[in-house]
């Protein structure tokens, strides 16, 4: 059962990710990426990380992608306005990324799976457990993340406001 | 400019107080007003009527479609003196006078009558000055609503639309209106 779910979700996410990269209309790209994110959220549920799954949906599908779509609609970009790279670029890109994939798969072949021996705890992905770890072991990074957010907010407002000519 | 009615209010763009700036008191006040209306209407006292089934009463002095009266013997009161046309501020009334012939005594009360009497209902403003001007109590405004039409020509009402019928059941009761006009005179 899990295998089939995993396979289906994986195929869906890879297919929509490819469509995202290949479709010429940026709005279609955004919609395909949203579909990819839903498939990935499904993978999180499969991995018993429900809290992560719902946060993933809220953050990515609910906020970040809405922001992307909003900017696209604000700038009103259609496929007519986007210049395409030449085919040579595309072939080069495909070769480069393909060879990186080859390197990764090759490295994976050489490794041995030494992970599944750990006793499994079902409550790892639950919000109580995550909260405890986050607010004890990771409390300093957590605060720093808050400062990062503040900096990003101030930066976004500043960038959006100032009228500098390039 | 000096205000004549002393009802005008000067608009002041003053700083809002804290209570005004949180808006909630004003919102609650407005919602209380609408809620009062809601309950008044739920208990059945709607201002609106279910029109074709329920009709609103006319005011006793309502001014609608004109009628040219006949007397008790069924003779037309109008003598085509033209005072109504003179009084009309909208120039809606025209008429052509004619002499009464022998044998027409049962039709017209006096020696002169209106051969043609037309009121343009599109021009008429239903002010009632014609009935005040009439010395013979011949024209009255009634509580009948002028029917609608698609063609302008059809709103020029001739005598066929204005003079009441001879038969008692076709007579139009203008008692209240008559009293009102006489008092005004």
């Amino acid at each position, binding site marked *: 059962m899990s295998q089939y779910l995993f396979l289906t979700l994986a195929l869906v996410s890879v297919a929509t990710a490819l469509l995202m990269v290949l479709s010429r209309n940026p709005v279609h790209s955004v*919609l395909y990426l949203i579909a990819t994110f839903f498939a990935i959220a499904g993978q999180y549920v499969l991995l018993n990380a429900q809290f992560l799954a719902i946060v993933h949906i809220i953050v990515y599908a609910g906020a970040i992608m809405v922001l992307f779509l909003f900017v696209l609609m604000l700038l009103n970009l259609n496929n007519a306005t986007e210049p395409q790279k030449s085919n040579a670029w595309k072939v080069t890109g495909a070769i480069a990324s393909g060879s990186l994939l080859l390197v990764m798969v090759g490295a994976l072949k050489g490794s041995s799976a030494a992970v599944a021996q750990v006793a499994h705890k079902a409550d790892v992905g639950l919000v109580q457990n995550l909260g405890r770890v986050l607010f004890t072991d990771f409390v300093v990074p957590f605060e720093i993340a808050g400062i990062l957010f503040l900096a990003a907010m101030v930066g976004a407002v500043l960038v959006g406001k100032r009228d500098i000519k390039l | 400019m000096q205000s004549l009615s002393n009802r005008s209010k000067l608009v002041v763009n003053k700083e809002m107080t804290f209570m005004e700036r949180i808006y909630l008191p004003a919102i609650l006040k407005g919602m209380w007003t609408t809620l009062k209306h809601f309950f008044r209407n739920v208990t059945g006292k*709607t201002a609106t009527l279910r029109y074709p089934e329920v009709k609103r009463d006319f005011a006793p002095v309502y001014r609608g479609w004109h009628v040219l009266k006949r007397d008790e013997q069924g003779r037309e009161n109008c003598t085509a003196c033209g005072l109504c046309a003179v009084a009309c501020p909208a120039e809606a009334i025209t008429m052509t006078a004619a002499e009464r012939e022998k044998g027409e005594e049962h039709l017209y009360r006096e020696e002169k009558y209106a051969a043609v009497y037309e009121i343009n209902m599109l021009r008429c403003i239903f002010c009632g000055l014609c009935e005040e001007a009439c010395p013979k109590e011949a024209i009255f405004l009634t509580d009948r609503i002028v029917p609608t039409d698609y063609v302008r020509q059809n709103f020029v009402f001739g005598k066929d639309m204005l003079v009441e019928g001879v038969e008692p059941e076709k007579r139009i009761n203008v008692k209240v209106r008559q009293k009102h006009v006489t008092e005004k005179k």
Partner: protein
Amino acid sequence: MSALLLFISAVIIEKTALVLVMFLITLGIAAYSTYGERKVAAFLQDRLGPDRAGPWGILQPLADGAKMFTKEDFIPKDSNKWLFILGPGAFIFVALMTSAVIPWGTYFTGFGLNVDLQVADVNIGILYVMGFVSLGVYGIMIGGWASNNKYSLFGAIRASSQMISYELAMGLSIISVILITGTLSLRGIADGQAGTWLGFIPQWNVFLQPLGFIIFFVCALAETNRAPFDLPECETELVGGYHTEYSAMKLGSFLFAEYINMFISSAVISTVYFGGYNFPGIDPSWLWGLMGPVVIFAKTFFFIFVFMWIRWTLPRFRYDQLMHLGWKSLIPLSILNMLLTGAGILCLG
């Protein structure tokens, strides 16, 4: 093994039945909300409202539905056809999904059955609601963009920025509730509000979180695109906003989903702030456990009425006022509320 299979199939049948019942109830309530809205609007404005279809016009939703289904279904020539169809579909789908985690009562215990009156007791139910509420905007954005009409596009853009702005304040005010209740499960939040203080004040979160409730309520109005926050579809400026180009049942699904959203957010408000299926002096397990649904539906209907009451009382905001209210008033206030709640918990234990 077969016993386990039997158990699993029983659970599946039970949940399917519950989902179907909830689906039908939601659609019925949404249909009759349209009638209720028109009646309430009429009464607030000294009118009679629809009264021709059936006694007091109670068959009006059927007449409206028949009209919606039989009108010409029009797809603009230069629109993006698939996305044009996907928009209303996504909107109504997301609206219907949200009701899955709301506890409508404790347990139904009649006819030898023991049915949990909640489709799924997710331990992060309130986050699930937030997630699906934030997805609701996609239907509007896709539909508005695919129409290839500048008014629709404006409506879509307005909807998205409004949703993003008000979601923040909504989430922050919910965090204060979570601080008090200590759980993310809606069943847990509802159960935590049983009982009374001093014997007559119900232990509802609204008495602990009055400011949070007001913020949440304002944000719920904005998230459901209800007046005075109905800028994405405001008739006076944008014709019909994102649904300008829609007709027939596609328009119907947009309008329908709006009423479903209103119903769901009323239910969430009653659950989070007004004790859900709890009411002092009433045990939710009475009447084979159907007393719980009766109580929560009564609260929900009250809030649906308040939504309508507000719509027909208040004028619409201007767009910059909307953004000012969201970013400069509600978000600082909700952060303040959160800090006060935290301080209160720290001091009082």
